[in-house]
């Protein structure tokens, strides 16, 4: 709307002369009002999106043991408490380990599957794509119950391996989806060129295809990482006393107490996610990969 009059003039030199001056002025005012009318709801919704997290971050700076907002006095004591705590340290290490395992697993499985679906030409291709994305269609509580029951039979409840597998199931569709976008935009002539110049199948995949898929893989890896780092719905049921991830520890702490130390660790988790996203966004456009 903003540049409509300019485009009008540029596109049709003669037609632009048609609307009289006052009408054009009126349209410009209307356009300005329209822009405000469009921007105001957007600003309000953005405020709604940011509010709870901003409040949480500010409350974590409370000097007293309350989550009063705004805080009466500021301090970093809850951060010191969290970072000095043995329990949180164990959880942080576990969450970090899981992120590495889950990203490696889902990036490998997801990239291959997405490449096959986007570029392959075999019967049942669409069915494979649907299957690879289907965990997204199943409500989280159902995945949680099914994995809990399954893991009980296999002795995987309250184990790191169990959490690794569970997080990978939840994160895999995100990787498949982002890599599929990259693979669909991939120019097949580049691979054919490499093959005609004598590169073997594996070499083509490794030196031509994979680098071209990098934006999608990176975006998928970010989503896998943050999914694993934030997963609670399934983790809360299949984890146990020895395998309490950071979000699950937050989950149980929140149910029993409202203490700024939980707000402090939540803020740290939040900052870590935003940092990862900003860094990766420099290399690839996450917004497009979604």
């Amino acid at each position, binding site marked *: *709307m903003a540049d*409509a009059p300019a*485009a*009008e003039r540029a596109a*049709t030199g003669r037609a632009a002369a048609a609307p009289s001056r006052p009408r054009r002025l009126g*349209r410009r005012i209307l*356009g300005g009002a*329209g822009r405000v009318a469009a921007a105001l*709801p*957007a600003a309000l919704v953005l405020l709604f*999106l940011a*509010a*709870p*997290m901003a*409040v*949480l971050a500010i409350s974590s700076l409370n000097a007293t043991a*309350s*989550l*009063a*907002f705004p805080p009466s006095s500021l301090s970093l004591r809850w951060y010191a408490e969290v970072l000095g705590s043995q329990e949180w340290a164990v959880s942080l290490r576990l969450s970090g380990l899981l992120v590495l395992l889950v990203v490696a697993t889902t990036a490998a*499985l997801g990239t*291959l*599957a997405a*490449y*096959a679906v986007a570029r*392959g*030409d*075999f019967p049942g291709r669409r069915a*494979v794509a649907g*299957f*690879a994305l289907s*965990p997204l*269609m199943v*409500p*989280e*509580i*159902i995945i949680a*119950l*099914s994995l809990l*029951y*399954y893991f009980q039979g296999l002795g995987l409840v309250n184990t790191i391996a169990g959490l690794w597998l569970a997080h990978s*199931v939840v994160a*895999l569709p995100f990787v498949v989806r982002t890599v599929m976008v990259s693979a669909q935009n991939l120019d097949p002539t580049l*691979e054919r060129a490499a093959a005609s110049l004598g590169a073997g199948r594996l070499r083509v995949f490794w030196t031509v295809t994979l680098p071209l898929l990098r934006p999608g893989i990176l975006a998928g890896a970010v989503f896998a990482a*943050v999914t694993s*780092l*934030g997963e*609670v*719905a399934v983790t809360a049921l299949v984890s146990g006393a020895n395998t309490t991830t950071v*979000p699950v520890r*937050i*989950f149980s702490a*929140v149910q029993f107490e*409202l203490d700024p130390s*939980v*707000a402090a660790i*939540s803020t740290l*988790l939040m900052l870590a996610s*935003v940092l*990862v996203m900003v860094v990766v966004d420099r290399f690839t456009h996450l917004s497009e990969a979604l």
Partner: protein
Amino acid sequence: MTRTSPTRGRAAGAGYALPAVLFLAALFAVPLARILELSLHPVDGTGNPLPEFSLVQYQRVLTEPFFAESLRSSLLTALLVTVLCLLLGYPVAYALARTRPGVLRTVMFVIVVSPLLTSVVVRSYGWVVLLSANGAVNRFLVATGLADAPVPLLTSYLAIVVSVTHVLLPFAVIPLTTALGGIDGNLRRASQMLGAGPIRTFWRITVPLSLPGVATGALVVLPLAMGIYITPLLVGGANRPLAGLRVYSQITSVYDYPVAAALSFTLLLLTLLCVTVLGSGFRFWERRLYG
């Protein structure tokens, strides 16, 4: 390529998908099949499944108000949240799609996506802090005289709808932004040059062309809203009549897995039904628009 036959190329293409398919078969399909089987068994007095098959668990789910009410409530809440996400997400997506790349766009994008990258626990906890008795909202209400004493916001249905909408909103904004960003600006200009005002252009050009984004947003948000349980648990407590919470409480405090499995599958069927109806509704609408 020149040296490989087409059939071999096909087999190799399928081979790439094999690891992921096997992985999901073992850890997604089989576990689902296992609880489907479990849901077909009656239980003895202590909740242990008996060997014979029956549909008694499904009968319980559909007739006992404790479960049936929760399914109805989950469905209505999910539909409400989906509509809210689309309505609230549209202006943000519109603004995002029309803002040129720069600092403002990056800030907007970070605000939209950061909730997606933050644990659902953290986001729900933010609402707990905001809505608690001495939280920001209650302080504001008391300070401005809108309320005499702190209002019990935390356990209200409204709090659940607001927080679940907040949690799922980014999932609606992203496909809407993609759809709105993909609309050729010349179409809008053409519409205005032909005499349509900005409002008419918006309704006749922008909205119909963004329909695929609306459909994707709805189809992503709805299944997520149907089974959500962490956010309502933290914000509204474990006793709210929502199917996700009922399954959770059957697992963690009653230990009746078969009825939890039956409730889960009924919820899954309901979700798939909604997705199918919604999906074909959108397809029908698109066909009518584009012929």
